[in-house]
């Protein structure tokens, strides 16, 4: 009961703190999706059917990854360096309640961008998407994994290093991750790396549930995400409860 009450109050606190940024975050995410969906056809005027579907389903995936692995670690890192994370840790609430409350608010920030991304993509390319009901667990899983891994990054690394690494992640996610293209386009060594990282699985479950008629849903993708999600959560929780 105590944990639930704390959770509810902390969700209120964190959403009030972020409410000023919410419209901005939504705008940025929509621009992300718009940029991808409207920009690719400018680069490549003739797009085949598969590529169009890849772009339309890759945009929401990129949107989730960029919030979880870029915006979140930067915000958490800043909170860590300015001491506000220590203040939250000094409150008489279960650390788990704090962490889950913060993740809840981040998930709420991610979802509008995802929905907008899909809608804009479908409208721009005139797609008839047969969205699978699995899209809900897929989006939750992708967003949760991205936020947990992002949180773990910020918890473990010094702030400045977090900022530098998240900048590198932006380039890596946009240019060298199989979200808007299939992994076989990558050089063999990078393909191997992506089999271990969670980003490829994020792309697979997103497109496999938004456009199930176009793309298969590899059976192991959810499992890969679950492993990364639990790992990220445990690292974050350990950092949150650690007394240096």
């Amino acid at each position: 009961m105590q944990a639930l009450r704390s959770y509810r109050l902390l969700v209120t606190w964190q959403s009030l703190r972020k409410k000023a940024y919410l419209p901005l975050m939504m705008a940025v995410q929509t621009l992300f999706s718009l940029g991808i969906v409207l920009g690719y056809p400018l680069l490549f005027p003739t797009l085949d059917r598969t590529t169009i579907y890849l772009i339309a389903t890759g945009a929401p995936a990129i949107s989730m990854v960029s919030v979880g692995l870029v915006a979140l670690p930067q915000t958490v890192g800043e909170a860590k360096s300015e001491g506000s994370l220590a203040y939250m840790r000094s409150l008489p609430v279960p650390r788990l309640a704090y962490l889950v409350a913060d993740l809840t608010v981040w998930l709420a920030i991610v979802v509008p961008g995802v929905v907008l991304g899909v809608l804009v993509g479908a409208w721009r390319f005139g797609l008839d998407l047969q969205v699978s009901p699995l899209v809900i667990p897929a989006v939750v899983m992708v967003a949760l994994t991205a936020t947990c891994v992002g949180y773990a990054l910020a918890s473990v690394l010094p702030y400045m290093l977090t900022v530098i690494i998240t900048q590198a992640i932006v380039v890596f996610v946009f240019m060298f991750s199989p979200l808007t293209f299939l992994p076989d386009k990558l050089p063999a060594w990078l393909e191997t790396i992506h089999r271990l990282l969670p980003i490829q699985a994020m792309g697979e479950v997103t497109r496999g549930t938004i456009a199930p008629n176009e793309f298969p849903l590899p059976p192991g993708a959810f499992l890969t995400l679950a492993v990364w999600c639990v790992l990220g959560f445990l690292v974050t929780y350990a950092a949150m409860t650690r007394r240096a």
Partner: protein
Amino acid sequence: MLLEIENLKKVFRSGVRANDGIDLSIDSGEVFGLLGHNGAGKTTLVNQVIGLLKPTDGSIRIDRRDMIADPGLARRLCSFQAQSQVPIDGLTPRQAIELLGQLRGAAGADVRRRRARLVDALDLGEWLDVDAARLSGGVKRLVAFAMAAVAPGRLVMLDEPTNDVDPIRRRLLWQQVRSLADEGAAVLLVTHNVVEAERSVDRLAILDAGHVITEGTPAELKARLGAELRLELVVDPRATELPVSPFGRSAVPVGNRLMVGVPMDAAGPAVGWAESLQRAGAVEEFTLGPATLEDVYVAMVGGLEVRPAEMEESFDASAA
């Protein structure tokens, strides 16, 4: 005693011995000041009590219960105002104070009543429903205090609560600190503002390089200094040598000032000596007054090591 700290040691991985065998105890109803300049180990001590840092050695007990073994209990028994600003941008003071009260487990009606009382007492009414992002640093600091005081624990720890607060509201704040103790809490007040501490604390300890170098009531500490009066000489900045005190007491240089301890019965000769120095041009001006806690502090911690900015702040506060 409510809070009992014994032989507390904290050695960081860098090798810094931030706390080096600290013994302290604070009782309910008492305002206890922890003084010392930056890097003395004050915040490290507080962070160990609240369970953010783990001591290298020693014990911390509240109500005879081991806080090192149960940091969750420590957070429930202590309320805490951190030195850094609280993360409340986006919330109004009303929301922030009430949320904190509820998070500390108090009932909604009690929280609202106490919030109203604190907002009145600290004269924060005009900002009650303004987004904290638009508040000045001083007002935010007062809101942070109200957050620590709205549903206080058995021990209330305040780390530099008056930073950035205007002189009028500082007084209001000190009254509320006293109320917390009167209502039965033990208050641990961390500050480097010696002048304010003298007026507000029941007992204090001075921390230097991780050690408690003295502890007692402000009156006891002044008596221990052995000088009832303080002669403050403003020395000619071009002078190559400082005047030598004929009173055999402490004489501590602070910037271009020399603080000389003087026994009560030597007030006349002290003024005579100072006048002769002034006539000789070695001293620009002088004042003779009762010794203050600041003199004890400066004598014990060492005038030259006190950073000028901190001394200026103390002087400003005394002027206010």
